[in-house]
């Protein structure tokens, strides 16, 4: 069965640079979620989209933005990167009212 696909798997950026993470949801899933998991931490909800509209917002810094496109894939844009942004970033997708499935994550390292 198709899973949630994230790219890239690993990303190394310098401080103050910009990063873009991509998420391709499971086909026919109309909702996408982004989570951030710092080292040794639990995942924190960042933002979600339903049918290309932002549906909820969590602890997402103002330096980050995200959108969902017409083909339902989503991108998380992160600017002015800080060392503290180093984390695993998970995307998840779901159909309406169903449990989400998580992607394999993108490991971002800011140096």
């Amino acid at each position, binding site marked *: 069965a198709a899973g949630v696909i994230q790219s890239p798997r690993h990303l190394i950026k310098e401080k103050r640079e910009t990063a873009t993470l991509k998420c391709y949801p499971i086909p026919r899933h109309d909702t996408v979620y982004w989570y951030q998991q710092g080292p040794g931490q639990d995942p924190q909800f960042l933002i979600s989209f339903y049918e290309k509209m932002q549906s909820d917002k969590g602890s997402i810094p103002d330096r980050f933005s995200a959108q969902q496109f017409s083909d339902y894939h989503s991108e998380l844009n992160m600017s002015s990167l800080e060392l503290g942004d180093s984390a695993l970033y998970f995307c998840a997708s779901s159909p309406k009212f*169903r449990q989400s499935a998580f992607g394999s994550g993108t490991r971002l390292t800011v140096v």
Partner: protein
Amino acid sequence: ELKVEQNPLFLSMQEGKNYTIYCNYSTTSDRLYWYRQDPGKSLESLFVLLSNGAVKQEGRLMASLDTKARLSTLHITAAVHDLSATYFCAVDMQRSNFGNEKLTFGTGTRLTIIP
């Protein structure tokens, strides 16, 4: 603000032993999940608990939910080395008209099974 607490944070146990991980949450919710995470890997869904008194079992793992006590447990029976991982509970507080989730995760329990 919803708070989800797990205990213990770290658990080291011998193969063949039984143990329980506890998950407490601070406000009413009707949907609780348990996930497994191996180091650097994704979150694997183990159980979804939807109602008070719900009990689900898969192999050596059994999860239960008491919504009145705002408590869920994950019980490990006769542990084997392959169960070594971090286990998270997560509470879904958001069931808006959009039908989307908003998961708040517990602190996680790092389980190490010693042969």
